[in-house]
Every structure is written in structure tokens, then in C-alpha cells.
């Protein structure tokens, strides 16, 4: 049991990061109906912004973190204005392709400015281990939970109780009707991208502190997709729960399934997708997804 927990908890911590990325994904999908393939690249860019601010410019870490969130917000809005806005009213798959263009643009920009090298954040988070119920857990994992939770709760409250949040949810349901009520749809799409970028950047900073910052961090965008599906494409809370489920199960599968047979070696990598398939077969709209209320 002890051993199981010591496997599970780091898995969940990574899952919290997946959850944050998934949250960013859902934010964009919910508000503008765009499936953002480049979500992982937002994480990557966020991580590097924080690196530049805190290491290269020497700004204190926590200030740099806040600045990163702010700058990412602005970048998100910029991306929306320059690339997504002209696509309003166009076939939805063309808009998805635009996000692939964003994928290329962002990852190549990172390559150009930072090169294919590894960067390390100095250890900001406390490094000592804490004993939780007899298991030694690195504090950085606990910090993952805490920071992820803070960001998530912030987004959740925003959506639940602010007028802007409700307006954004209304756009998700019926964009034109929202427009007819005076909701400035375009501006809110920008806000959605900004928020999404900020949340992803938060995930990027967490990843950076837990691991190494490098141009390949975008891989996490792919891991967020099973998390999103398990949670349900439109559900903010679902994204977080999905992330935790995927992260936890992935770690458990990697440790307990892989050694069972040669065939299962490397199962960790596809296990999230197996879960994805299973969830979709049982609950086609994820655990918390919105079933389209359809009438002919």
C-alpha cells in the first residue's frame, strides 16, 4: 500500500499538470469551438517566458511567475486576434488547421530563440521531502497540486460567478444568440485564448520546476487530450479530474502493468489512450461532458 501510494502520488502530481493543460484546452474549445492542436506549444512558450524572465532577466521567481501569466495572457489574445479572428465563420476544420499552423510557428520560434538545448530552473520550490502517512514525498509534487489547484479554482470561480464567465459559457452554447444579447463575442474569444494561454503557461512553469525546460515540452499537449476526453470536452472540472485520472493511472500502469510481460513494456505511453477508448465506449461524452440536447 505504501509503495502503491508512493507510485500514485507523483503520478497524480504530473496528472495535475496534465489537468492544467487540459483545462486550457477546454477553455478554448468551450468558448470558441476550436480544437487547439497547439496546446502543448502554449505550455512550451509559457515555460520559456518564465525562464527568460526569471533567469535571463533576473526577476524574482514569484514575480516572474505572475508576469509570465500576464504576458501569456497577452500572447493568447494576440494569437487570437491575428490568426483566429479572420477565420470567424469558416469551416471548423479549417480553424483546427490554423492551430496546426500555430503549432509550427510557436515551436519553431522557440527553436530559433532558445535552440535545441536544455535549461534548468534553479530550484525555487523547497527540495526537502515530507513524510505523509509514512511515505516520503518530494515537496515539489505537493507544490504541483497546490499551484494547479489555485489556477483551477481561479478559472472555475471566474466561469461560475462572473458575468464575463457566464457570457463565455453562453457563447459556447449559441454564439449568435449571445451576440444578439450584446455579448462581445470577438473580445471574449480573445479572453478565452488569453486565459488558456495563461493556464498553460502556469503548467509550463510547473513542468519547468519539476523537470527540465526544453523545446520538446510540447509533448504534454498530447497527454492532455486523453485527460480532456475522459473529463468531457466542455467540462472545466472534468479536465482537472481527467488529468488526475490519466496521470495516476499512467504511473500505476507503468509500474505495475509493464513488468507483467515483455509485450507490455512501454505500456505507460499508450495506456492513457486505452483509457480514453474505454471511457468513450462506456460514456461517449466523457465523465462530465455535455451531451448535446438534440431535437430534430
Amino acid at each position, binding site marked *: 500500500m505504501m509503495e502503491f501510494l508512493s507510485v500514485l502520488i507523483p503520478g497524480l502530481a504530473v496528472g495535475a499538470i496534465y489537468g492544467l493543460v487540459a483545462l486550457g484546452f477546454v477553455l478554448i474549445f468551450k468558448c470558441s469551438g476550436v480544437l487547439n492542436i497547439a496546446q502543448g506549444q502554449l505550455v512550451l512558450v509559457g515555460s520559456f517566458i518564465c525562464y527568460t524572465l526569471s533567469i535571463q532577466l533576473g526577476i524574482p521567481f514569484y514575480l516572474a511567475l505572475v508576469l509570465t501569466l500576464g504576458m501569456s495572457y497577452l500572447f493568447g489574445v494576440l494569437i487570437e486576434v491575428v490568426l483566429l479572428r479572420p477565420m470567424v465563420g469558416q469551416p471548423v476544420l479549417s480553424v483546427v488547421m490554423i492551430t496546426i499552423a500555430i503549432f509550427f510557428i510557436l515551436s519553431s520560434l522557440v527553436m530559433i530563440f532558445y535552440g535545441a538545448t536544455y535549461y534548468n530552473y534553479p530550484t525555487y520550490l523547497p527540495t526537502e521531502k515530507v513524510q505523509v502517512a509514512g511515505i516520503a514525498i518530494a515537496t515539489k509534487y505537493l507544490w504541483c497540486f497546490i499551484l494547479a489547484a489555485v489556477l483551477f479554482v481561479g478559472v472555475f470561480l471566474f466561469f461560475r460567478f462572473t458575468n464575463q464567465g*457566464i457570457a463565455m*459559457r453562453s457563447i459556447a452554447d449559441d454564439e*449568435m*444568440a449571445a451576440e*444578439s444579447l*450584446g*455579448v*462581445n463575442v470577438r473580445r471574449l474569444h480573445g479572453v478565452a485564448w488569453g486565459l488558456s494561454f495563461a493556464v498553460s503557461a502556469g503548467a509550463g512553469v510547473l513542468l519547468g520546476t519539476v523537470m527540465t525546460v526544453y523545446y520538446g515540452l510540447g509533448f504534454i499537449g498530447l497527454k492532455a487530450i486523453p485527460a480532456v476526453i475522459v473529463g468531457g470536452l466542455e467540462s472545466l472540472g472534468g479536465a482537472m479530474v481527467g488529468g488526475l485520472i490519466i496521470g495516476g493511472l499512467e504511473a500505476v500502469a507503468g509500474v505495475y502493468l509493464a513488468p507483467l510481460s515483455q509485450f507490455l513494456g512501454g505500456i505507460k505511453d499508450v495506456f492513457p489512450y486505452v483509457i480514453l477508448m474505454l471511457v468513450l465506449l462506456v460514456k461517449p461524452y466523457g465523465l462530465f461532458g455535455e451531451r448535446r*440536447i438534440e431535437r430534430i
Partner: protein
Amino acid sequence: MLVLNSIEVMYGGVLLILKGISIQVPEGGIIALLGSNGAGKSTTLKAISGLLKSEEGAVTDGSIIFDGIRIDNKDAYQIVKLGIVQVMEGRRIFEHLTTEENLRAGGQSDGGSINRKLDMVYSYFPQLKKLRNQVSGYLSGGEQQMLVIGRALMKHPRLLLLDEPSLGLAPRLVEEILGIVKRINEDEKTAILLVEQNATLGLEASSYGYVMENGKVVLDGPVDKLKANEDVKEFYLGLTEVGKKKSYRDVKHYTRRKRWLA
């Protein structure tokens, strides 16, 4: 208050839908816009409320003036700020939001206490208050229609554009809703531009009417005069003598007359 000066609307740069429409809505009046399917009624409303733009449509000629301000180049949210709110055809509720969230989604940016506005809406539609925490997608058709009208009311509009509120509703419900609309018109001094396919209903509720055909206004006048018009009787109110064979001359007469009118 609202003046449409011979506007033309084009979709996608090729499809001319409105070919010179002129309409006036006076302060506090109820105006009916009648016409059959595809006559361009909904397009006229969207041209006023600025919703055309998200459908690749544009006002290509003429002007729309509201209180002396030209609005045909403004975005939807700016027009709503000026006090024109459209209730779209087909009960476009936000189906995953609760009733109250639906109302709040409309009632944001223009100051004023939301609670007071909510109370106002609930006073017109007491049924909605009972359903305030229900997910609106599961409301009945009539309740949904009430919700969309209530949602528009949250903006305290000076002009309400109502698109086919009767669509797919039982006659009794339609009457109830139209009654409430009339009350809103009287109490709140909201002018109303009512689009109806059901001409009987439309003419009953309003004081002045326009008849549209093929992107043009072919006939207009005070309701009484319209009701008396032979063509309106025949083509919109269905009051032609049953069983009598229509002669080719009648048809010719109608088209000639329409051409003359336009």
C-alpha cells in the same frame, strides 16, 4: 426612432437578399413585418441588430439610423448597447446554462443592478422564477420562448426585435406570450418590431404593418387598412372565397400591382 432607408443586403458577396427596404419604427410602437418564407424578414432584423456579420452578410446600400445614429456599420454588441435587442427565431436558449444564468448572460455590461432586472423579468414571467435553477435545455417550448424574451428584456431595450415568437407553439401559448409582449410594450415603453409568418397574429398585435415579398416591401400601412386590403386578405390572411376558380387575370393583376407598388 428607427429608420431603414432603402437598404440592400448581400450574402457572401453574391446573393442579394434585400433589395431596398425602407421601414420606420416609431417610439413605443408595435410594428409588424409580414411575409412568407424567404421574403427576407429575418434578414431585415439581422441587418438592424448587426448579426449579419457573423453570417457573411453585409448591408451594401442604404442606411439604418437609430435615434439619429447610423448603425448599419456597427457590431452587434454596440447596437445592443444603443438599446436594440433581437430575439432570434427558434428559441435560441443557452441550453446548458440554468434559467437564471441565461438571463444573466444577457444582463451584463450596462450598469444597473442585476437583481432588480431579474425581478422585473420574473414579474412578467413568473413561471421562470420557479425554474430558475433548471438547466434550460430541458424547459418546454413555451418556457423557452418566455426565457428568450425575458433574456432580451434584461437589456432594458428601447427596441425589441421579435422574430417569429409563435413558431411551433400551441395557439394558447402564443396568445399568452403576445399578451405579455403587449404588456411589456405598454409598461416599459419598449418599441417592438414583430416578424410573423402568421399574419393574423402579427396584425392583431400591432398598429402598423409592412408586407415583404422577395426582399422588397410590397405593401405597408396601418393595420386596419392592411386588413382591409384585398391582396393581404387573399394571400396572407387566407380570406379568399373558397372553391372559386382563380382566373389568370387575377394573378396578372396581382403581379402588376406589386410591381407598381415596388
